[in-house]
């Protein structure tokens, strides 16, 4: 092939044939490159603990304790409201049974210690598996009778305190009485009042009535708990040809996780939805237009703040539970790092994902109609579709942003930001190094 005289080539292996300058090049490149890699990529997380440590034990418990055990589905079939169900486990989930002025709890003697009475300042928690139900009569304890007695005594007491209640035109209080009982199983699916976004949290005046701490997180200075759970029961129904279900306190209990997650109930844990939401955020390319970082700039803490408080700047700790983090390089839409606080309404997001220009005038965001299904029965009067799992996933993912930095009792949107963002931007304070 080559018409020139072949030159003498030194024999030997690859490295013998490379001359000095080539070897110098390769070695030099590798040395310089690895030096910078060590300092800029490997060292930082050992030098700066915030890269791997959580922002608060609330954050840890939200991601590790609450998310995997809170299950979400449409309330029944294709309804667009949500049903939340807690998977509570013995020796794991902390429960609170708390009375209020007009709702009381009756229990057999050995369970009475688990009740936090009305006006009692110290909350009594337990990881023993207990539930509330409408009073029933059993062999050991006649809850119906106990409830009747309790109601009578409360009403009598109330009449004593309000002797002129008839003249004042008020009516007797409607006292709701539940029975605390011990189910046979080691776990249960339970209903409890929740917004599905921020969990009950207590960090002072509480005690856990376990002989020894059952879980490591039970030793934390604050804990997430489930308040007044009652068993989640359903009745299967048929709407047309579609298998459906409704919540029914007298219906059947759910037989295990598989039943909860499979058709027609179709529940997903919040952890699963958040993970799916993160995936959707990646593949839909949300991150090309939305940043996910409140920078240490006045404009950023203001843009993401509320009417009364600036948002704290993002810290590395906020991101440690994300498989992919999207700090972003371009802000064509607003920053999303505090969206769980700024826009927490599910209805707003429903409208916005379908009709961005309607919800935000002047927006250039594309519509995400594939996050919604058509109304199966066609009876819905509004033009909005029924949100499908893609919407629920992206919504749950977005709602993690800004809501988990500190416990709700020290929330920045209440002005309790420990960083002191407001002081700093007004020039009265300094960021701690």
């Amino acid at each position: 092939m080559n018409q020139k005289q072949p030159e003498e080539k030194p024999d030997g292996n690859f490295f013998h044939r490379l001359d000095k300058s080539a070897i110098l090049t390769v070695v030099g490149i590798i040395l310089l490159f690895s030096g910078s890699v060590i300092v800029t990529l490997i060292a930082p997380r050992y030098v700066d603990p915030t890269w791997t440590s959580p922002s608060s034990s609330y954050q840890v418990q939200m991601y590790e304790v609450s998310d995997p055990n809170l299950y979400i589905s449409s309330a029944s079939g294709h309804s667009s409201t949500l049903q939340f169900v807690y998977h509570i486990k013995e020796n794991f989930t902390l429960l609170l049974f708390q009375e209020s002025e007009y709702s009381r709890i009756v229990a057999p003697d050995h369970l009475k210690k688990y009740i936090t009475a009305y006006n009692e300042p110290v909350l009594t928690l337990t990881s023993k598996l207990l539930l509330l139900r409408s009073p029933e009569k059993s062999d050991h304890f006649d809850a119906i009778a106990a409830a009747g007695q309790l109601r009578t005594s409360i009403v009598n007491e109330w009449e004593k305190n309000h002797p002129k209640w008839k003249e004042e035109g008020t009516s007797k209080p409607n006292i709701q009485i539940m029975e605390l009982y011990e189910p046979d199983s080691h776990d249960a699916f339970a209903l409890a009042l929740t917004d599905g976004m921020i969990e009950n949290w207590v960090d002072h005046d509480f005690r856990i009535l376990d002989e020894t701490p059952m879980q490591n997180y039970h030793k934390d200075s604050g804990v997430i708990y489930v308040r007044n759970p009652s068993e989640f029961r359903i009745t299967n129904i048929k709407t047309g040809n579609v298998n459906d279900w409704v919540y029914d306190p007298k219906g059947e209990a759910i037989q295990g996780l598989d039943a909860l997650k499979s058709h027609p109930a179709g529940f997903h844990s919040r952890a699963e939805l958040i993970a799916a939401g993160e995936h959707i955020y990646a593949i839909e390319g949300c991150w090309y237009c939305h940043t996910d970082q409140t920078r240490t700039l006045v404009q950023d803490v203001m843009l993401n703040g509320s009417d009364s408080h600036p948002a704290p700047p993002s810290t590395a700790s906020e991101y440690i539970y994300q498989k992919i983090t999207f700090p972003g390089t371009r802000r064509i839409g607003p920053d999303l790092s505090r969206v769980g606080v700024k826009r927490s309404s599910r209805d707003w997001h429903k409208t916005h994902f379908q009709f961005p220009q309607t919800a935000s005038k002047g927006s250039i965001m594309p519509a995400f109609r594939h996050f919604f299904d058509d109304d199966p029965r066609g009876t819905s009067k509004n033009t909005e579709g029924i949100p499908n799992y893609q919407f629920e996933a992206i919504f749950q993912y977005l709602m993690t942003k800004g809501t988990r930095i500190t416990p709700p009792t020290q929330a920045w949107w209440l002005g309790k930001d420990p960083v002191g963002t407001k002081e700093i931007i007004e020039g009265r304070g300094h960021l701690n190094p």
Partner: protein
Amino acid sequence: MEQTNLAYDDRPVKFMLYPAILFMVFGMTVGVFLAFNTFLFPDYFSGEYVHFGRVRPTHVGSVTLLWLLSADIGLLYYFVPRLCGIPVWSSKLAFVSIGLWWFSLALGVLSYPWGTNFGWEYAELPNWVAYIPVKYITTIAWVLLAANLFMTIANRKHEKMYVSLWYTMGTLIWTTFTFITGSYAVNWVPEGISRVNVSFFYVHNLVGLIFTPMGLATAYYFLPKLANTPIYSHRLSMIGFWSVAFVYAWVGAHHIMHGPMSQWLQTTAVVFSIWLFIPVWTVVYNIFATLQGHWKSYIQSAPIRFLIMGNIFYLITCIQGPLMALRNINEITSKTDWVIGHSHISLYGTFTFFAIAGIYQAIPVITQKPLWSQRLADWHFNLNLLGSIPFLLALWLGGFWQGMLWATWANGTSFAEFHNNLTLLPFLQTITEMHYFWMLRGIGGVIILFANVLFAINIFNTVVLDPVSETKKKETPEITVVA
């Protein structure tokens, strides 16, 4: 026809360059589509598979990987053997790696609208598309290419290594590590900012340690060839090379200035970013100085104009880059269209221009015919320049303007004042303000697209037709005689 050409196997060059040119036109078409369908007529074509978030990575992947990186690889197959004085080590190996390269990369990049995005910037290539492990195949293809070129260099006849070979060896090593870092190692470190840091390390080094050395290798090889003059200073190019090697890998964190990144790491990135002036100015000066005394060739040759214009853009991009890393300038420019302008002037204005110049020089050699039309090449350059000016200015000015608008929220000294600023100028208002800049950008984009369609036509005709000039010379007299 040079006699020495017969010694080289240029089929790998062709197999890389021809598809790359088509993908450039494709990628730019997608870019123009986005400029209109997202920014000027938002969501006109609406739906799951055509909205901005799903199509943008297809534009970026097409122009960066399917066009620029692939074209640069084609040019490596061209000049590495020529600088070594031997044909490429193994043509068969080259065919295998090129086949794997196109198959996996094209499949990966074109699959983004169907929801395969990996989720990290510039590293969107998915591990799997259906049952095809595209990312692994791409990696293998690259390693085969690197092995092939290293063996070519190891077996070379010309003892002295020209600077382009140094840059090539740098590219082959850096790209391997950078690609593995961004595409695989990002998942080997703890979740959160560690991954972000690795990702931005990759994002910066994709440009700094892949496209820069490849582009400079191209420029250093083709400018002396085109202008028929030796490089001004071999030593200066060496200084440039080693400062690239020293500086680039440190600056990744400047992509997240003011963000949730350790302050000392941000500061480190700022310092090294400023040092980037060293490699840049050596390159820029060296290229200008090479053409000293030969400026007439600038007038005569479109590829030289591309190289020199690319060099000017390189100077601009590399003045911008370090300055954008400064905390106060970053506060204004970051997260705005300025950044998009900066990425376009470097990957389009500089390195695409360099690659085009290289192709103009290489195509006549590998096809052994002169270029089909010099006039079309002149038009190609003129329109590219004409389009890039409104395009880039719109992005810079618009971006800077938007950054200044955001900064008005920080006017004052109290929360009440800040809040009042934000009430007077809501975020969405700052989007509306961009409309005319986006219009200008769209117009520029259309001109650029048109220019490069002419380029594709010119190259296509060069390959398949007889040269225009020769046809005319032959035919015109004959017709006269008949008449």
